[in-house]
């Protein structure tokens, strides 16, 4: 039976929800000082520097790898540029054992958790050390050790999975939650709505973090939804929601810390909408000059989340010009050296073509694989990546 607690009226009354105005939570100004009345977050020096190093590392990795893609060393790349605070600030507010189910632009979360530059490079170049065995396009990272689910390209599929994963965590009772990341474009997919509704119905400890970065490839948010952002949707599911300045590392961290408390201690799922901007192209295959202006980009460049945090760190005397110089130089050098190493490594073994389709290779596939190996042995020159493997397995 359908019931509602609403009062009864005797004339038709329409409502469009306009009375609900969701505010934007901010703490840190662009000059590195706190807003008047803003409470300084509970963030010690060690953690603050861990966050900052992860942000800078992500920015440098992105710059270098896009350049590598432009040089033809890499087939594809996607940058997190401009959104480092939204991703890293939220990940940093979690326990490192909490699960992350990301979309594809959240390499900052991995950097924060300790994914090494070698690990990034092995995936980007799909070499024999890539955990994903050279099967997925660049930036489709995964790490079971760091509780980061392997990326899947189809949009929004991870969102209801996060609800399910977190429900399992609740049943297990180990006090952990799941955070899932997605863009404001992906939030249009049916999976988003299913995920939020199920999370609210089943009281699941999951945090939905929307990176509202203004664009889904070329489509501006204004053509994605008519509503005031993604946040108001939470009301429809009776879910706690907060909107945050996504370029404000302190606000993102504080909002996520509080959200985690609601999720883990009260089994209340939370939607966080971080307002940010995709400063880079959608991917290395995209050219934003066809759909947005340089002036618009310049406005957001002024709101750089990394510079904002650096100014705050400097105001607290936790960071200096020298520290910055050293970090930048070290990271650039490490990225370049690691890239060269990863590029030289051989591709994954030939049998990675047929492994992991099932837990064991079924007989029909084994037969196809035998035929493939025989074929490669007849034409070794046509298959430089696998001729040696095929020969060895003869």
């Amino acid at each position: 039976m359908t019931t509602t607690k609403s009062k009864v009226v005797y004339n038709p009354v329409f409502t469009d929800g306009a009375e609900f105005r969701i505010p934007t939570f901010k703490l840190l100004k662009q000059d590195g000082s706190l807003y008047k009345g803003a409470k300084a977050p509970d963030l010690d020096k060690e953690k603050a520097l861990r966050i900052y190093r992860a942000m800078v590392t992500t920015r440098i990795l992105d710059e270098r790898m896009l350049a590598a893609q432009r040089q033809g060393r890499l087939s594809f790349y996607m940058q997190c540029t401009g959104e480092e605070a939204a991703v890293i600030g939220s990940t940093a507010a979690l326990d490192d054992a909490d699960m992350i189910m990301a979309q594809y632009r959240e390499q900052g979360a991995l950097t924060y958790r300790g994914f090494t530059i070698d690990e990034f490079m092995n995936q980007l170049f799909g070499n024999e050390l890539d955990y994903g065995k050279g099967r997925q396009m660049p930036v489709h990272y995964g790490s079971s050790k760091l509780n980061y689910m392997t990326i899947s390209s189809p949009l929004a599929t991870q969102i209801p999975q996060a609800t399910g994963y977190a429900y399992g965590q609740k049943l297990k009772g180990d006090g952990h939650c799941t955070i899932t990341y997605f863009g404001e474009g992906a939030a249009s997919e049916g999976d988003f709505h299913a995920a939020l509704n199920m999370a609210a119905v089943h009281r699941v400890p999951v945090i939905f973090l929307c990176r509202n970065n203004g664009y889904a490839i070329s489509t501006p948010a204004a053509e994605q939804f008519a509503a005031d952002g993604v946040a108001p949707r939470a009301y429809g599911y009776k879910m706690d929601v907060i909107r945050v300045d996504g370029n404000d590392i302190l606000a993102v961290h504080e909002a996520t810390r509080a959200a985690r408390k609601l999720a883990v201690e009260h089994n209340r799922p939370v939607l966080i909408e971080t307002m940010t901007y995709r400063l880079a192209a959608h991917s290395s295959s995209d050219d934003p000059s066809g759909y947005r202006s340089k002036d618009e980009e310049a406005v957001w460049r002024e709101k750089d989340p990394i510079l904002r945090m650096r100014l705050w760190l400097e105001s607290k005397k936790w960071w200096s010009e020298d520290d910055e110089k050293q970090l930048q130089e070290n990271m650039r050098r490490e990225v370049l050296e690691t890239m060269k190493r990863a590029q030289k490594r051989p591709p994954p073994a030939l049998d990675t073509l047929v492994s992991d389709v099932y837990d064991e290779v079924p007989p029909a596939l084994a037969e196809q694989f035998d035929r493939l190996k025989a074929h490669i042995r007849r034409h070794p020159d046509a298959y430089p990546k696998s001729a040696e493997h095929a020969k060895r397995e003869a």
Partner: protein
Amino acid sequence: MTQMNMLQAINNALDTAMGSDERVLCFGEDVGVFGGVFRATSNLQQKYGKARCFNTPLVEQGIIGFANGLAAQGSVPVAEIQFADYIFPAFDQIVNESAKFRYRSGNLFNVGGLTIRAPYGGGIAGGLYHSQSPEAYFAHTPGLKIVVPRNPHQAKGLLLASIHDKNPTLFFEPKRLYRASVGDVPDEDYRLPLGEAEVLKEGTDVTVLGWGAQMEVIEHAVEMAEKEGISCEVIDLRTILPWDVETVANSVLKTGRLVVTHEAPLTGGFAGEIAATIQERCFLYLESPIARVTGMDTPFPLVLEKEHLPNSLKVHEAIRSSVEF
């Protein structure tokens, strides 16, 4: 005649259709001012306005559901799914709705005006989710038509035929060929027949059958085989559903041998359907088992893409094995 690549031919077909019939609409993700991620819909919004060519929210099931509604109302929607790999959220709308609209209503209603365009196929370092060939899933669905062009000329003529066909049609575009080559494309409105395969080259020893991007692979394989004195008859199926049994069967009755090739995995691939039908029709005339040269029964890989794909070397070997059986 104008020299065009396949993308330009598709763009030209859409322009032709929109220009001649104001009921034709083009929409999908990034289709509007940007003209689509591959630019197949370039300048259509500028030319025909935002009401007829527009961006949709990012929701494939919504795009096709919306398109079904439009088609039922009498419009002629041409919906783009950005990659065929991303068509699956719309599977319900296509399989349960588009395909069955006419049948379930006793022909009171239909969505015959619907055309769904989607780039498909591998060979572009796209990995699992930018490479798949999903035609066989839809070939198991009576009520749909499935069309795949092999070059710019075919792309325009088949797309215009799909748009004007009285049945919901899936038009899979081989994205590897989008900018691969140019060819002569007539400037006027022309329509190539759906449901008809095309014999591209006559031969006597073996029939080699494929569609879309695989026709280029076949061409290279056949070149090698002909140098060895094997006479190949080459057929482009063009329409997967409903498919042209007569043309294929007549060819195999003549050659006695058949090699079918597609990128999609072997098991459940459309080559299996063709093989079953042709052995029924041509059993006493077959000189060798019907050969299938396909992708392996695995998801689509990235680094070892070349090993996975049914390339011209593999098709050539199958042609030889068939003849030497």
